[in-house]
């Protein structure tokens, strides 16, 4: 039965009944994001259509002293878009308009609910695109990308989301509307945009974003190199970068993933190999051939068994589809998987990959790899059966051990998926008490009531701790 609280009634009078979801059955679908391991129920979900409405919602939540947070497409993999302490989810899907595209200034102004890929689709015919391309780009929102500082295969050349955000309009935790940054890079004053990008929705709700548009490259080439050992592939990665080449993308995919992709998506990956590299280079026609030759030589030196170029746009698109949707295909070969987002310095790639596989073996599990190798973002995927409690625990143990090793090797906890609720307990691996206190000070200054997206990033709050392991999850999510 639905009991309407004062909060719900107030929200309904702000937005109308149709835009306030409070029925317990309907709220169930908002209990998790891409990470189904961690589930928390919200009290209401609201669908604002303007910055002003978001501001009014925020003030209403503060008035009722309930937690609140924004949600984009819920493709996040760290439990960021769930109401960890209950409260109100501000669903941004109805703020999905591309407000302005300005090719003279090479910027676009968008609402946060715009799907990442839709912006590139709108501008590509005119010779531009939006460069950050997380594998989830056909579904995730630009607002969610800003919150998570999302990266993708082409981050290697173009940088992460932070490098492409010029300004934004934000509803602060007290409901005040502020503008930061602008259409041009500015070095005056505090870099608030820099602070907000990657803050995982804990400092304010973004309602308008000014992004950079990137010119489409004059031309590009995509290669597929095959190797008989994972080590040979990862050594090639290190050598390519060491040779001073910066490919647009450099991805490593191991045999377990290849099998899954080929049995389901048929991307044209070679079978019977230990690993492949998907390499893309972009630039002026004139320089590409020389670079291509150099990369080919490096791969062959490290023992590549095959090296071929995608001959047509459909072939290239098919290879990328295989890469970007690999995780879905992997879902078909294992009851569940858990992905971790550790990063290591590139030179440590061969070492960490070997460690992952060994650690998995020691814990009785298989570990697959789908890495943004060029960035040292390793993305080990731990395969397990969620109905088997021992395996589930072993998966968590494996993940923790790998993360610890990443940090020991001079890397980081998270390359792109954020900390959310998922990595709360691992937070202390990376930051000491002083670091944490500094960050908390920033958060408290901007969000004194602590009602905006609580229990995220920092291991504070009533319900912190490792996410509850449920029997019914379909698996962690991933890249």
């Amino acid at each position, binding site marked *: 039965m639905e009991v309407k609280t004062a909060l719900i009634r107030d929200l309904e009078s702000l937005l109308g009944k149709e835009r306030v*979801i409070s*029925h*317990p*059955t*309907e709220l*169930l*679908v*908002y209990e*998790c*994001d*891409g990470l*189904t391991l961690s589930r928390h129920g919200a009290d209401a*979900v609201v*669908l604002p259509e303007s910055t002003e409405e978001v501001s009014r919602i925020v003030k209403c939540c503060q008035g009722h002293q309930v937690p609140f947070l924004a949600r984009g*497409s*819920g*493709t996040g993999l760290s439990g960021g878009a769930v109401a960890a302490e209950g409260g109100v989810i501000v*669903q941004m*899907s*109805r703020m*999905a308009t591309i407000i302005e595209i300005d090719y003279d200034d090479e910027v676009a102004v968008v609402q946060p*609910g715009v*799907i990442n*890929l*839709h912006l590139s689709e709108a501008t590509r015919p005119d010779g531009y695109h939006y460069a950050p391309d997380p594998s*989830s780009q*056909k*579904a*995730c929102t630009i607002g969610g990308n800003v919150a998570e500082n999302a990266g993708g295969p082409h981050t290697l050349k173009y940088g992460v989301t932070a490098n492409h955000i010029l300004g934004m309009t934000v509803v602060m935790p007290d409901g005040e509307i502020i503008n930061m940054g602008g259409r041009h890079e500015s070095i005056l004053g505090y870099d608030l945009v820099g602070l907000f990008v990657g803050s995982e929705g804990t400092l304010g709700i973004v309602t308008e974003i000014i992004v950079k548009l990137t010119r489409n490259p004059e031309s590009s080439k995509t290669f597929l190199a095959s190797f008989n050992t994972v080590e040979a592939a990862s050594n090639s990665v290190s050598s390519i970068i060491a040779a001073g080449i910066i490919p647009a993308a450099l991805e490593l995919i191991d045999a377990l993933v290849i099998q899954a992709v080929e049995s*389901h*998506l048929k991307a044209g990956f070679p079978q019977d190999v230990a690993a492949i590299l998907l390499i893309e280079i972009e630039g002026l026609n004139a320089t590409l051939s020389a670079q291509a030759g150099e990369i080919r030589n490096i791969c062959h030196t490290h023992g590549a068994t095959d090296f071929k170029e995608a001959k047509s746009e459909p072939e290239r698109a098919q290879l990328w589809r295989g890469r*970007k*949707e*690999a*995780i*879905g*295909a992997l*879902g*078909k070969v294992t*009851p569940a998987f858990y992905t971790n987002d550790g990063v290591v310095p590139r030179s440590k790639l061969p070492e960490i990959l070997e460690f992952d596989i060994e650690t998995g073996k020691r814990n009785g599990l298989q570990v697959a790899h789908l890495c943004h190798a060029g960035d040292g973002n390793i993305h080990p995927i731990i395969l397990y059966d969620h*109905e088997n409690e021992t395996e589930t625990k072993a998966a968590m143990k494996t993940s923790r051990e790998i993360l610890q090793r990443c940090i020991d090797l001079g890397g980081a906890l998270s390359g792109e998926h954020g900390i959310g609720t998922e990595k709360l307990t691992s937070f202390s691996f990376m930051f000491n008490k002083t670091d944490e206190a500094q960050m908390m000070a920033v958060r408290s200054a901007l969000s004194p009531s602590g009602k905006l997206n609580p229990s995220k990033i920092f291991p504070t709050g009533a319900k912190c701790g490792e996410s509850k392991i449920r*029997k*019914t999850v*379909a*698996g962690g*999510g991933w890249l």
Partner: protein
Amino acid sequence: MSETVTSPLSRTFHAEEKRLLQECIHCGFCLPACPTYMENGKEMDSPRGRLHLMESLLEGRMNLDSAFEEHMKLCLVCRACETACPSGVQFGHLMEATRQSIAEVKQKGRLERFLLQTVLPSHRWLSFLFTITRVIQILRLDKLSTVPPLSLLVPKKLRQLQLSLPTVPPRRFGRSYDVHYRAIRKQRGTVTLFTGCVMDHLFPHVHTATVRLLTWHGYDVTIPSDQACCGALHAHAGEKSMTSFLADQNISILDNCNSDYIVINSAGCGSHLKSYLTYIDSGISSRVVDLSELLAVIEMKPKAIGPTDPVAYDEPCHLLHGQGISTQPKTILEKIPEINLVPLKGSDRCCGSAGSYSITETEMSLKLLDAKMDDIEASGAAIVVTANPGCQMQLNWGVKRRGINVEVLHLAELLDKCFRIDPSYPTDPLVLD
């Protein structure tokens, strides 16, 4: 999955369905592909949300309440989510199983029940009702029924249905006896044409065009009498017994035809005959082809229709997502000399027709139709091509509502038009008895 309580879904969710449900990894890739989610932005009206609700109901975490029912009903079963899903989730199948469970405990509206149980399975009823409609149309009473006092007498859904119908032709295509047409040029093979229900009564000219095209390109065509409605709408609505009754009836007839192919020019029927288990098990499905699959591989020389009219192709969901057919119709269109094919934004998005959806979920259906018409107007197309009777009706209705000058044609009609410029092309296909 532990089940302490028997869920209302457990009758139609067997081990296989449960396994299929588990294949969803909750990635959300399907969200932007879903017309209902893109329209209202609610997770419950997204594929992932609907699967989440199914799972929750199965686990006994909620009841089969009106909220659950509402979100399942609002699904178009357009299966765009299947095309988008990297994990191969068979959403259409799971939705049909869910609706079956719902149908077992909740009764449908009277009009919907009457249409599904009585009208669609019977050519007599169809003829009777369409004849009345034809009279109403000739006397122009359909317009009258929208103004008081008649509008007060006729239920709103019926009025909507009436307005959206095209001009009803004098008679249906099928006969009470089997009809055979002989190949005109070099014999390529034999086909059986599946005539369906609405297609047979409202679009006989599309069937005629289809027969002319097939015979011209070397196929003997058989039209068996007593073919029934394929049952797709019944399956979507969860009407299990009627679905299998209709399948059995069609199988008994189609099984007797020794043709190489069973040709279907209605995407919805084709998708159902290819994927419904009873049809698959009978061996019928493996012979079913969409008309475009057959014609795309034939070398043909249609004449130009006039180089100026911009033509757009709007992909029927059950062709694109249901059967994975997308290049074939385009290949065929490109064979028309000097054709001015224009891109249509959102051509892969449902027009809101979706079988009986326009009657049961009129509000959402009209929103989707409006979005479609905006895109059609923006494309500048003078001719919109489709390959499914439901879409053709819906798009026609959209054109009528807007009062714009756009012609909606079935692919077979357009192609047939191009051939008819050739004097040796038959006006009447050769009948054999």
